[in-house]
């Protein structure tokens, strides 16, 4: 893992080095036709959770999990002869997690330490902005790879500003093609089958496709307030459960989670940002969500950055979330043999959750710790609690390099 981390860091630093101070900045009014380094961002986080409703053990058992995640993105820009701005964004993400519940897929092969896995998720995007016309088009590709799951995604977007530049329509489309290994719990594997090893060929594969289209409109209401409306539709097809999620029926039999092979999700969102006085900003988000599995949800998010001075902000936040259960959920030993679809995954049960915390952000003129290239540092902590007993904590660090 260390080697992979160092390799990723090495690649990114090589990018920085190769573009460092080779081209003049746009701030002088000069628009470079050559590719020039715009900015880079590093976001790294540590997440841990615990609860007693693991889907791997049929809705009972530990949900202990830790995850370390790092995402680095580097942005380059250039201007073409028609004065259009081209932006290239290269992103590399890396996750490493340990999960106690994954031990229970096959407890006989694991000695006690929690099962660990890593995920690599690079992506590339390119957009062209015509500032005269107020339009932007963009395309992107994303990959995600871990031991039992591979995903490839493509996306495209188009945005158009209104004549007075106070509003903007955006249309986006995304497709994800996923492949997952059909890893059954040990007691449900056919006798004589493979499935105990770490080789690619040990397991069958299943596929999953996700298509999404979204429309949004943002508008400046006045000098202090702007809002955005977002409507999205997501259609998923294929194997939408997970093969190692056990369900215990009321006759003590154990089976694998079975869910419909299509799901249509409709989230509708509204965002608003308001500058209150000279030091406080209020950022709000509300989302209504509905899908054809019977799940309805509401999300409200409030964040209030407080500018202590021009270079230092404190940012408290609070998020409330509420959902109903999907039609196919029942707890441990509550499903019957008559049920066509069944799951004991508590992520799909009825619950409310609260997520709250605070962070700070520094943007010193001479750079963070006197290092001119690090233009911003932000750190924040959040605590998440679900009414069904799951609790988690996340601490995140973000840095911007210019």
């Amino acid at each position, binding site marked *: 893992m260390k080697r992979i981390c160092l390799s990723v860091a090495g690649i990114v630093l090589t990018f920085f080095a190769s573009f460092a101070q080779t081209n003049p900045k746009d701030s002088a009014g000069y628009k470079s036709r050559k590719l020039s380094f715009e900015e880079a961002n590093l976001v790294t986080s540590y997440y841990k959770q615990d609860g007693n409703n693991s889907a791997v053990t049929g809705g009972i058992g530990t949900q202990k999990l830790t995850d370390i995640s790092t995402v680095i993105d580097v942005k380059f820009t250039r201007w073409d002869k028609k004065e259009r701005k081209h932006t290239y964004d290269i992103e590399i993400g890396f996750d490493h997690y340990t999960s106690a519940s994954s031990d229970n897929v096959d407890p006989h092969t694991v000695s006690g330490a929690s099962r660990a896995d890593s995920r690599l998720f690079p992506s590339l995007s390119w957009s062209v902005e015509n500032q005269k016309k107020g339009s932007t088009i963009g395309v992107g590709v994303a990959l995600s790879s871990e031991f039992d*799951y591979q995903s*490839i995604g493509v996306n495209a977007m188009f945005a158009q500003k209104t004549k007075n530049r106070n509003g903007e329509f955006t249309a986006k489309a995304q497709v*994800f093609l*996923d492949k997952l290994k059909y890893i059954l719990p040990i007691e449900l594997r056919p006798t004589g089958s493979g499935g105990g090893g770490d080789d690619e060929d040990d397991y069958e594969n299943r596929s999953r496709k996700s298509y999404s289209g979204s429309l949004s409109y943002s508008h400046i209401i006045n000098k202090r307030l702007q809002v955005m409306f977002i409507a*999205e539709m997501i259609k998923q097809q294929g194997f939408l459960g997970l093969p190692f999620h056990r369900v215990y029926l009321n006759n003590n039999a154990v089976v694998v989670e079975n869910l419909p092979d299509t799901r249509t999700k409709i989230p509708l969102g509204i965002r608003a940002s308001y500058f209150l006085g000279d030091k406080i900003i209020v950022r709000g988000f509300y989302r209504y969500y509905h899908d054809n599995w019977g799940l309805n949800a509401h999300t409200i998010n409030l964040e209030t950055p407080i*500018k202590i001075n021009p270079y230092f902000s404190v940012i408290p936040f609070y998020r409330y979330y509420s959902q109903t259960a999907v039609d196919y959920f029942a707890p441990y030993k509550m499903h019957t043999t008559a049920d066509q679809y069944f799951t004991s995954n508590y992520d799909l049960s009825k619950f409310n959750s609260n997520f709250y915390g605070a962070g700070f952000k520094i943007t010193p003129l001479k750079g963070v710790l006197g290092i001119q290239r690090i233009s911003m540092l932000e750190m924040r902590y959040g605590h998440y609690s679900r009414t069904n007993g799951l609790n988690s904590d996340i601490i995140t660090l973000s840095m911007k390099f210019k």
Partner: protein
Amino acid sequence: MKKNHQRSTARMIALALFFSAIAFASCTTVKEYQKNKLNDSEMTLSARKIEKTEMSFQSYREGASGANGGKTGGGCGCN
């Protein structure tokens, strides 16, 4: 139970439309040179980079996703 939920959903949507109508009623054209507050980095309407990993775990631990600028597919989040 479902009827209650539908009623509360309708109420929430009506409330959102009401506040949107008030907001749009007070619309004024803001010139570029008047946008210094709107251009503040904290005023962004999209999700910020630091929220990325938070949105990722929430999309795994909750049944709802989308309409927040995050991913709507791809990746497992199985555990």
